[in-house]
């Protein structure tokens, strides 16, 4: 009891939470930084303005489950994909509208990039295709792949988009007239993708409980193995010094400095109790990482010191969503059993 009470101290003193009673698929803060949305397995978004202690507004957006949620390119709205084949935009006020419909196919992954005025981009993956949209939601182009796309990510400048699939990653220049991708090949099923903040490395999670990486400047392969489970959640630290991942009973951090992770052991934080880490999210302005675990535990770990701060105690379901707002003052998380919370880390 005592330990549990301590572990929950941050949540109880600086957090607000709800039992939403549906699988929390993802969470996102819109680019204005005011509103947070939780995407749920029942097709709704639950939208809240934490600073205003607002009500949690439930908006029916998809007919099936929401499968992907990201901030819209412009402030004040969210983009979501669902198993109803819809790609939709929902304002913080709760007005939802179609951007595109893809029939019976699932809209499984979404990504967005906020550029300078009106130059932002969004993208969704549907089956083997990645569809690219401009800031206004007009479809720009479609990138085709040989197998189903399992993850998409823009690079930090919004110039390229990486799509993972069977046997590797396709890296597309979004502005290229004649689209042909750079193919990063590695045999096997790749199930998630992340792009290094400096744009020189692409990393995937693989079906075989390992990560695979490519250094783009020289094509060097990087293989990071030893995970007991799939490492589906990937997050680079703010300047790309570390790559955090789930898939073990600790937050796993691979060094991406001093020559890269090859031949090195990863840092393991917040481990030791045999519970699988299921979500990671690096802090946007400090070398710190948040981790969510299969038993519901959420922690914040300082990477340099290894100090671990409990955020929420175990017991509310497997953590399935974990995200920071842009300035790193709020952490949102949700669980498979429908618990959702936002914790305030701002100096008081």
């Amino acid at each position, binding site marked *: 009891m005592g330990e549990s009470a301590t572990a929950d101290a941050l949540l109880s003193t600086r957090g607000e939470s709800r039992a939403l009673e549906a*699988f929390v698929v993802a969470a996102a803060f819109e680019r204005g930084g005011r509103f947070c949305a939780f995407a749920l397995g029942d097709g709704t978004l639950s939208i809240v303005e934490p600073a205003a202690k607002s009500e949690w507004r439930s908006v029916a957006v998809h007919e*099936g*489950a929401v499968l992907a949620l990201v901030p819209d390119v412009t402030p004040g709205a969210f983009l979501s994909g669902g*198993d109803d084949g819809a790609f939709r935009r929902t304002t913080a006020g709760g007005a939802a509208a179609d951007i595109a419909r893809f029939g*019976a196919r699932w809209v499984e992954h979404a990504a967005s990039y906020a550029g300078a005025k009106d130059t932002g981009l969004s993208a969704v993956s549907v089956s083997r295709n990645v569809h690219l949209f401009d800031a206004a939601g007009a479809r720009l182009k479609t990138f085709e792949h040989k197998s189903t796309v399992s993850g998409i990510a823009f690079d930090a400048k919004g110039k390229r988009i990486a799509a993972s699939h069977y046997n590797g990653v396709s890296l597309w220049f979004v502005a290229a007239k004649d689209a042909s991708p750079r193919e990063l090949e590695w045999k*096997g*099923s790749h199930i998630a993708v992340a792009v290094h903040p400096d744009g020189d490395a692409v990393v995937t999670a693989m079906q075989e409980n390992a990560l695979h990486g490519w250094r783009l400047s020289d094509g060097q392969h990087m293989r990071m193995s030893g995970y007991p489970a799939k490492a589906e959640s990937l997050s680079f630290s703010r300047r790309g010094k570390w790559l955090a991942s789930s898939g073990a009973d600790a937050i796993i951090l691979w060094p991406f400095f001093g020559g890269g992770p090859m031949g090195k052991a990863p840092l393991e934080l917040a481990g030791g109790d045999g519970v699988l880490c299921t979500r990671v999210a690096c802090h946007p302005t400090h070398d710190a990482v948040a981790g969510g675990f*299969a038993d519901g535990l959420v922690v914040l770990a300082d990477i340099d010191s290894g100090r671990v701060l409990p955020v929420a105690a175990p017991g509310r379901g*497997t953590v399935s969503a974990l995200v920071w707002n842009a300035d790193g003052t709020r952490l949102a998380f949700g669980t498979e059993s429908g618990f959702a919370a936002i914790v305030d880390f701002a100096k008081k």
Partner: protein
Amino acid sequence: MMAEPAAPGSASAPGSLPVPVTVLTGYLGAGKTTLLNRILTERHGRRYAVVINEFGELGVDNDLVVESDEEVFEMNNGCICCTVRGDLIRIVGGLMKRRDKFDGIIIETTGLANPAPVAQTFFVDEGVRQKTRLDAIVTVVDAKHLPGRLEDSHEAADQIAFADVIVLNKTDLVSAEELEAVEERIRGINRFARIHRTERAALPITDVLDQSAFDLDRVLAEVPDFLTEDAHEHNDDVTSVSFELEKPIDPERFNAWISVLLAEKGQDLLRTKGILSHAGEDRRFAFQAVHMIADGGFIGPWREGEPRTSRLVFIGRNLNRPQLRRGFESCQAG
């Protein structure tokens, strides 16, 4: 680098039972879609999520129909015949986000599909393993055209070999003699599946769903005429053989033998199932494998007075009966 994985099931919420999954195979035109339509329209109070390859054929409006491309992926685990259905791993993960909306999953495969990757997905992928249980592989065959199919493809025999339940359909299109002959042919390939004769795929859905055929404690629950000699040799390349041993098994010897056997002959061994009596153990040990991928564990105790015979069944190609028998016999304790 790291510690042991979290215990299976530790990630799922208490009380959330694994979802039963039925795999429906069979050639185009055998009656697979007719059977699926029956399952979905009959008033049984159950809701099914259905994974299909093409819309259009399905005459039922079901809001949980998922269209999918069969994507067979090789695993990089050093096991040459280990393939999985990548699309199913994704779809099962997606469906689990609305777990409360259905009671079971039905996966329809394309007519020419090899059932092994589907079955292996449920053994190999930890996420799928935790959240679902493979209930049964149901194969629909056309009584009139099956002999022709068996002549011109491997897949027809594979689908029968993998089946736990065979719906022998279109019996009205053949004579009584032809029907006997085709059933004999099926038995030659797989003596251990339950066969239901149907017209227009009409049968109680309880004959098809909730079979628990892959549960270890049901692995050999209904083996017919086990003691009889195997059916006479066919020219069909897929056959089934079974063995019994009265003396208890030495588990270490069995593991050593079966792991080498599966590694060397796993491509030919489509399904292997067994109930073993370990020396000095009051519980039965159940074993099953799909190609090289094996699963085993203790199930309930031997019943009072029940003969503790170890039984092993192989369904596959190029089965060397004397060699398999000698190998199994070498596993006896003492």
